[in-house]
């Protein structure tokens, strides 16, 4: 069953690549492929939600030697979220991707990028994780430069450079890890690392991985590439990037620092905690100085990632559950906000908040659709963001980490301020009339409002049904902290 | 007997490599450097072939063959662009 999650987007990408002469069909094909992925992801989640761990030994090579695909609860939840965002963007892209871009391979690259993301979430092998990172990066490089304007190339250049540095660090870390442990299978690593006596090299590797995944997850002080590059990509691409790519880094951090590097949590997780606090602060302060709709949102990705890392760093069952809940909430909300920014730009022809205005008066529905994810992001009850923040902060209070709780609360306030700024500038105030800027005269169409409404609805559902969602996060956290079932599922010859 | 010959030839090839690298560094023109890099590849092929005999491992011969087949592509590409710039 796991393999279908990988085969569907790959097959879809191949079909789209082979039919590059008929770009008109691409939208439909892409939509069908994304729907199939969504169904497969739901099926996998229904199988793992009870706590079962699915594994697949590729090529029938037994576990520590071959590549293992593992779907535990966290992986399946991430896969489902990826499929949801992929599906929403597949509908949304109709208005934003013209036949020329489709012929250039827009949809094919998008499916291949999703293929890479699914792979990164499902793999149970360190080196394989590196390979998946490269798969999704190559696809994302090409997607980012698809318009090939000079601004895009500049943004993509920073993105490529930083990510190559991250990959190099990762590769060095993998080499060292293999030298110490003699295996790269994650379950086997967890088993061997637990028995290791001399852990100095292991700590070094932990720090190298922290830098590498930290760059990918855009944590302090390695986040500069994110606001410099995300806003240059086409909006459907930016929405996937914003929702998913940094979360791949966060996922890798959570996986590695809950499974393998847990010897000296005083050392590693304290660093993570400090990093988390600084990430939150620098993200939200950076956002305050911005005037571009997408750049404000980009900086908020950074500050929100701080909360997830905080959940991981506190490292109690409740905190890790909070981190998982936060990821669920954030992927949906952040992609949605980017999609809305795209709609506003298509109507008003600008991303600059000082030039925008009046959206509320003209399009109250659009304003409402913005209101839900924006104030969920800021943590207003009863939306999903409130429960996510509450869980993480409660976990902090439980183990008396008041400093980080204080930072988290302060950043929450600043986020409200920042979202209010967008609300007031873009949706509420009267649009200033200037000569050089004119509205495009486009109206929002259903094709782009449906995915936005769908994601907003999910935000509300997560908020109202916080109990069951929290229960799932809790189980995922339990699986992360209790390694025995994971190791047995991978190494015990299970299928 | 053969090992002495191998040692001597390895030494000579290493020496010529150093001289070639000096030429790459000193130039003076781009064409000089490109040609020097090409010869560096050629001596590299010789080095690999001798090392293959030295270590009694015929897998290295394949590496030498691939290098010999591919090494000059870069040189030709360079000359293509030098040619174009002069036009």
């Amino acid at each position, binding site marked *: 069953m796991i393999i279908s999650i990988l085969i569907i987007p790959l097959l879809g990408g191949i079909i789209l690549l082979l039919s590059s002469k008929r770009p008109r069909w691409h939208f439909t094909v892409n939509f069908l492929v994304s729907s199939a992925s969504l169904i497969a992801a739901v099926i996998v989640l229904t199988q793992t939600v009870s706590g079962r761990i699915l594994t697949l030994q590729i*090529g*029938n090579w037994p576990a520590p030697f071959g590549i293992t695909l593992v779907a535990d609860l966290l992986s399946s939840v991430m896969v489902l979220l990826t499929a949801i965002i992929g599906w929403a963007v597949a509908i949304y892209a109709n208005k934003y991707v013209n036949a020329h871009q489709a012929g250039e391979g827009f949809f094919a690259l998008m499916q291949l990028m999703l293929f890479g993301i699914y792979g990164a979430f499902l793999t149970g092998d360190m080196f394989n994780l590196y390979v998946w990172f490269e798969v999704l990066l190559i696809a994302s490089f090409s997607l980012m430069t698809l318009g090939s304007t000079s601004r895009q190339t500049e943004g993509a250049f920073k993105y490529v450079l930083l990510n190559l540095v991250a990959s190099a660090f990762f590769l060095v870390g993998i080499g060292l890890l293999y030298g110490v442990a003699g295996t790269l299978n994650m379950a086997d690593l967890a088993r061997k690392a637990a028995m290791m006596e001399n852990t100095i090299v292991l700590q070094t590797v932990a720090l190298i991985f922290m830098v590498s995944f930290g760059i990918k997850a855009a944590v302090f002080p390695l986040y500069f590439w994110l606001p410099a590059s995300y806003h240059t990509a086409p909006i459907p691409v930016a929405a996937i990037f914003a929702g998913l790519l940094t979360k791949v880094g966060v996922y890798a951090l959570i996986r590695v620092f809950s499974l393998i590097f847990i010897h000296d949590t005083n050392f590693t997780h304290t660093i993570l905690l400090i990093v988390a606090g600084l990430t939150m602060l620098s993200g939200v302060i950076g956002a305050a100085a911005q005037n571009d709709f997408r750049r404000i949102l980009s900086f908020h990705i950074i500050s929100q990632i701080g909360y997830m890392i905080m959940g991981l760093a506190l490292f109690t069952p409740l905190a890790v559950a909070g981190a998982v809940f936060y990821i669920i909430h954030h992927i949906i909300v952040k992609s949605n906000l980017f999609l809305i920014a795209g709609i506003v730009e298509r109507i008003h022809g600008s991303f600059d908040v000082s030039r925008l205005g009046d959206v509320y008066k003209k399009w109250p529905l659009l304003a409402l659709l913005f209101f839900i994810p924006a104030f969920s992001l800021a943590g207003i009850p009863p939306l999903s963001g409130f429960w996510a923040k509450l869980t993480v902060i409660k976990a902090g209070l439980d183990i008396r980490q008041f400093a980080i709780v204080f930072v988290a609360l302060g950043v929450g306030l600043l986020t409200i301020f920042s979202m209010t700024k967008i609300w007031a500038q873009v949706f509420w105030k009267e649009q200033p009339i200037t000569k050089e800027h004119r509205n495009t005269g486009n109206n929002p169409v259903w094709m782009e409002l449906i995915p936005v409404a769908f994601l907003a609805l999910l935000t509300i559902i997560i908020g109202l049904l916080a109990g069951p969602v929290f229960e799932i996060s809790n189980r995922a956290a339990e699986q992360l902290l209790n390694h025995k079932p994971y190791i047995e599922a991978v190494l015990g010859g299970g299928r | 007997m053969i090992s002495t010959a191998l040692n001597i030839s390895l030494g000579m090839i290493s020496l010529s490599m150093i001289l070639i690298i000096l030429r790459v560094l000193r130039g003076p023109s781009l064409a000089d450097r490109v040609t020097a890099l090409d010869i560096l590849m050629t001596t590299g092929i010789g080095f690999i072939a001798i090392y293959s005999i030295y270590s009694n491992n015929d897998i290295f011969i394949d590496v030498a063959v691939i290098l010999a087949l591919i090494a000059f592509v870069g040189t030709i590409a360079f000359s293509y662009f030098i040619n174009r710039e002069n036009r």
Partner: protein
Amino acid sequence: MRSLILNTALRFIAPIMFLFSFFLLVRGHNNPGGGFIAGLVAAAAITLYTLSSGVSYGRRLLQIDARLLTGSGLLLALISGIPAITSGQSFMTGLWLEKTIIVIGKLGTPILFDAGVFMVVLGITSNIIFELMEHN
């Protein structure tokens, strides 16, 4: 760039490159070689022809569109994993024929996978070369 030396030399070198690339492809499973390096060697030959006779000649030499080649290569690699599923084994399990053939050795699904990789590498590399040559 018209060069008599290059054109004449290519007539002898290019067949050897293609032949060696095929050799690397088929023996790659148990010895150094494989689809990736074989694709690079073949792409080098295509590159040489493109440099000596122009992009349009390079495209004609490749016979099919480079992007199409990449796509079909991916498809072939994917298909190579399917027979294992139909015979009830894990995805990508290597299945081999019993008989051996001279030079090539045993035939099996991993050869298909390697051929797919070969096509992907050849397609992507020549596509990059064509694009670069056309835009400059």
